[in-house]
């Protein structure tokens, strides 16, 4: 029997502010982070995005100019997590960093003032590691939009199987750049309004920025949440479009639930990007698993799609939902908008909550489902 692995601490930095408990309250108050933005550095057209205000956080560190904006955001988030939970920096602490594109915004932009090489993910990870003083090199996972969730699973597996680590930090983040915005524009995936996951009139996704970090331990603390089961399967269908049958997500959920001992679920935190095809695929997969009646939300309506952070960000807020015994409504949803019905959460009701399922899907046909349980 392998030891259990628990999420014992967390921290979030987003346009809404900092601190995960603070974020949970902001969501309860219906705060949404996205705003129409016209910035030629991102796009020639106005885009509805959720972007972290630099003035607020990014320059609060020594030698700020030697670090890229994204590195500073990672460093600030990790400093707060380390300080709050007194996390040891020695080599028995594993750090897993999840990002889709890291410093890619530096490419072909000499005015940014960093060498081209800094766009390499391991160079970025090394800069953050050395600044903070972690002894072990970071492990970097770059697996499209499931990166944040997959990083939790990788850390769990290493804590369970390797004698080298006692605890782990998992951190996920991406920043918006012209590189990313222009690509999603080219895919015609962006909504020109705050997004509406699973809604009949959904028009696409919003891009967002967040840095999310979690502290994992083999020793449960008060309020710890156990990673009860994970499944991850590829659709083997299309590199940019979700499977019509939801095959990979279906297999991922089945595997995760079985690994967790088939618990009854109190809610599902879906990927829910608010694109027509993604939400439809998830509705198919959830119903194939017999989960169409489980209360379900997408948090993309609060933060937009935060790419490499999203799986981790949404997991952390799901954990706070368990601890507080209060459901988070799926903001932006009004009318059933998928062929197969889902039980979308519209009221933040209080009730005893013990177990939730987090899912994520991404380009390349990847999917992941993870079950989290408290107590």
């Amino acid at each position, binding site marked *: 029997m392998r030891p259990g692995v628990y999420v014992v601490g967390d921290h979030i930095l987003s346009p809404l502010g900092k601190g995960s408990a603070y974020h949970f309250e902001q969501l309860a108050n219906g705060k949404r982070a996205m705003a129409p933005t016209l910035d030629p550095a991102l796009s020639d057209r106005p885009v509805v995005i959720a972007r972290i205000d630099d003035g607020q956080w990014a320059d609060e560190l020594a030698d700020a100019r030697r670090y890229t904006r994204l590195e500073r955001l990672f460093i600030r988030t990790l400093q707060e997590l380390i300080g709050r939970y007194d996390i040891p920096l020695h080599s028995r602490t594993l750090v897993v960093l999840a990002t889709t594109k890291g410093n890619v915004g530096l*490419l072909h932009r000499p005015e940014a003032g960093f060498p081209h090489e800094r766009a390499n993910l391991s160079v970025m990870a090394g800069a953050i590691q050395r600044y903070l003083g972690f002894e072990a090199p970071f492990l970097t996972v770059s*697996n499209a939009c499931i990166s944040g969730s997959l990083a939790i699973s990788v850390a769990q597996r290493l804590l369970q199987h390797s004698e080298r680590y006692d605890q782990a930090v998992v951190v996920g983040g991406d920043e918006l750049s012209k590189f990313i915005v222009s690509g999603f524009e080219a895919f015609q995936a962006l909504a020109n309004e705050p997004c509406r996951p699973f809604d009949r009139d959904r028009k696409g996704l919003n891009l967002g920025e967040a840095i999310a970090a979690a502290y994992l331990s083999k020793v449960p603390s008060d309020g710890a949440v156990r990673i009860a089961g994970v499944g991850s399967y590829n659709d083997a269908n299309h590199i940019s479009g979700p499977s019509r049958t939801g095959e990979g997500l279906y297999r991922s959920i089945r595997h995760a639930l079985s690994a967790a001992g088939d618990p009854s679920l109190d809610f599902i935190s879906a990927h829910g990007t608010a694109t027509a095809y993604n939400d439809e695929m998830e509705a198919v997969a959830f119903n194939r698993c017999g989960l169409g009646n489980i209360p379900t939300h997408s948090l993309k309506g609060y933060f937009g799609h935060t790419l490499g952070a999203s799986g981790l960000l949404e997991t952390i807020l799901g954990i706070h939902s368990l601890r507080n015994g209060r459901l988070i409504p799926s903001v932006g949803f009004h009318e059933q908008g998928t062929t197969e019905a889902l039980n979308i959460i519209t009221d933040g009701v209080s009730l005893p909550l013990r177990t939730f399922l987090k899912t994520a899907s991404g380009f390349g*046909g990847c999917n992941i489902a993870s079950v989290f349980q408290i107590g």
Partner: protein
Amino acid sequence: MKTQRLYIQSHCTIRNRSIGVNGRTYWQGDPDASLSDFLKAAYRGLAIDYPKFHKMDGLCKAVFIAAELLARESGPYATDTTLVFSNYSSSHLADERHARDIHAGDEAVASPATFVYTLPNIVLGELSIRHRLHSENVFFIFDSFLPEFLVPYTETLFEGSRVAGALGGWTEVTEGRCDVLLYRIGTSGRIPHTIAGLKKLYNEDNE
């Protein structure tokens, strides 16, 4: 920790415009060819027939060819073959192209066909589609090939007979450097799946 003995069943390298299978030169390209000409010539020369190949970026093309040759060598992949890949430059070829396209002043235009390849794990999707793999995929970014991490990590995937096989890959493909090692891992075979075994495969020259 007690784990199952694992073996490397076959392996393919692509380096310096040369393709090797199990330590022997399998196909030799023109040493002066560009990466894309080399990959196109290899596709034709090896009589591979998969029209979607031509849409792929250089990273996917190189890895696709290597995976194809390993299927010829060791038979079709089991549907649960898990994929554990890594490199240094992520999706650098596609990243460069997309960045160039969008920073081209008045000519700037983003292409969805390029953008989709700006993720390193797209190659895992391409392999899953081609070989019908419904399995777990992960893409790590390292400074260099890291058997010290990959061997114990891959072993954990086999625990409890979760999977029958794995395909490991170091897939560093840029304009200036093509350094690909793909290797099939299973519960039987000749070369032990150990740190020393993998280092030897990575460092050996083809005969």
